[in-house]
């Protein structure tokens, strides 16, 4: 407890970093995932192929590998990135690939008569997508997108592996410091704290996803 109050500011900094990382990834991933998902239902075969390839690629790669690829290879190509930015890029790539699949599934679950009706009243196909299909599809994809959000928040902890100072890293530093200075091992308590904090963030999300699934079915 004493350790906790002494290091509270440090731990809070880490937590804020985690939350910022999650939110920025979420924003990018939603936007990118939406675009890729919509393009997966496009008329052009080439576009569909490329977009599906994108989704398969980043869903197939372990997140750790995507993270290392971005962190180690971008600098070799002359693009300087720090660990925060590379975590953001890697997690957005992975998450947008997953979201795009949810988006495509939702769009394809809308009966084709809706598209035909939209076209028949003289809307362009882009307008049909924007005003007829997407508003219905978004409700259907919400439960799985919220589930993916919770996955994304959990996955930000992986940025520790490339040295980003997020919540988990700050906890590790506190554990190390206490061990060095006072010779005490507080690993169990501190990791329990981490579990509790993540649980408090993610559990409401999964409850929300479950409820939505019930409402929209």
């Amino acid at each position, binding site marked *: 407890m004493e350790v906790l109050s002494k290091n509270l500011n440090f731990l809070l900094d880490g937590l804020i970093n985690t939350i910022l990382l999650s939110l920025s990834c979420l924003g990018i991933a939603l936007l990118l995932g939406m675009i890729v998902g919509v393009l997966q239902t496009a008329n052009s075969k080439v576009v569909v192929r490329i977009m599906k390839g994108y989704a398969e690629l980043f869903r*197939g790669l372990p997140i750790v590998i995507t993270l290392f690829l971005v962190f180690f290879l971008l600098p070799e190509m002359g693009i300087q990135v720090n660990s925060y930015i590379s975590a953001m890029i890697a997690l957005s790539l992975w998450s947008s690939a997953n979201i795009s699949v949810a988006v495509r*599934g939702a769009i394809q679950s809308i009966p084709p008569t809706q598209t035909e009706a939209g076209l028949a009243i003289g809307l362009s196909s882009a307008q049909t997508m924007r005003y007829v299909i997407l508003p219905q599809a978004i409700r259907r994809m919400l439960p799985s997108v919220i*589930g993916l959000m919770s996955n994304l928040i959990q996955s930000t902890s992986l940025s520790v592996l490339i040295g980003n100072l997020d919540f988990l890293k700050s906890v590790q530093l506190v554990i190390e410091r206490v061990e060095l200075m006072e010779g005490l091992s507080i690993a*169990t308590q501190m*990791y329990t704290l981490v579990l509790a904090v993540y649980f408090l963030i*993610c559990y409401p999300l999964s409850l929300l996803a479950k409820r939505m699934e019930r409402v929209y079915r």
Partner: protein
Amino acid sequence: MSFDFGYIIDALPLLLTGLKMTLFISVISIALSLVIGMSGAVVRTLKIPVLSQVIGVYVDVIRNTPLLVHVFFLYFGLPAFGVKLSAVAVGIIALSLWGGAFAAENFRGGTDAVPHALIESGQSLGLSTWQIVRHIIVPLGFRISFPAFSNTAVSVIKNSAYMTSIGVAELTFAAMDRIAYDFKTYEMLITIAVIYLLLVWGTSYLFGRIERKLDYKKAKKGRGLNGSIIEKFKLSPRRVD
């Protein structure tokens, strides 16, 4: 930036030992998560008091906390209780617990979808609860929810890369270790990325074949299994990581 193929060929034996470890951990963990998941699903479907609540809490805790923290907890936190596990053991336990929690949810979709009439007819035939579980709930539930479980299994393989953080000598660790030696970062990372992709896509394909073997497609049309079972259990094949 040219790709040095000769270097990769030299490094292949090392990567192969890493791959073996990845496969070893993954296969054991998938098998264990199958067992944990199926038992958990049956317990929750039968609504066995206390036990079913315990499993509910276990599933919620694991699903809502990061796997990396489980790994660190087991590896760095448990020694305080006098339990000291090797990195490989921690890897297998963490992955199995994680996979088991997700599999329990996957399978519950299947076991819950087994029509109650079937269970009742089992009872009226005089089958014991264990026989009903063994001959009705498990086989039917497994067939229905296998596609969902296969996604979890593939995720277990992918997530075995997490174990690099505690020094299990699996594929990622082997590659990173070699990179620290001779800084051929580009070649090495691309190579293991390709290996992982082949592994993941290969297993997905394999599971797809098993799904067809299990007659899921036929069942959907109402020929194999009772079609209404599938109707009730609307599959949303989304991968969890």
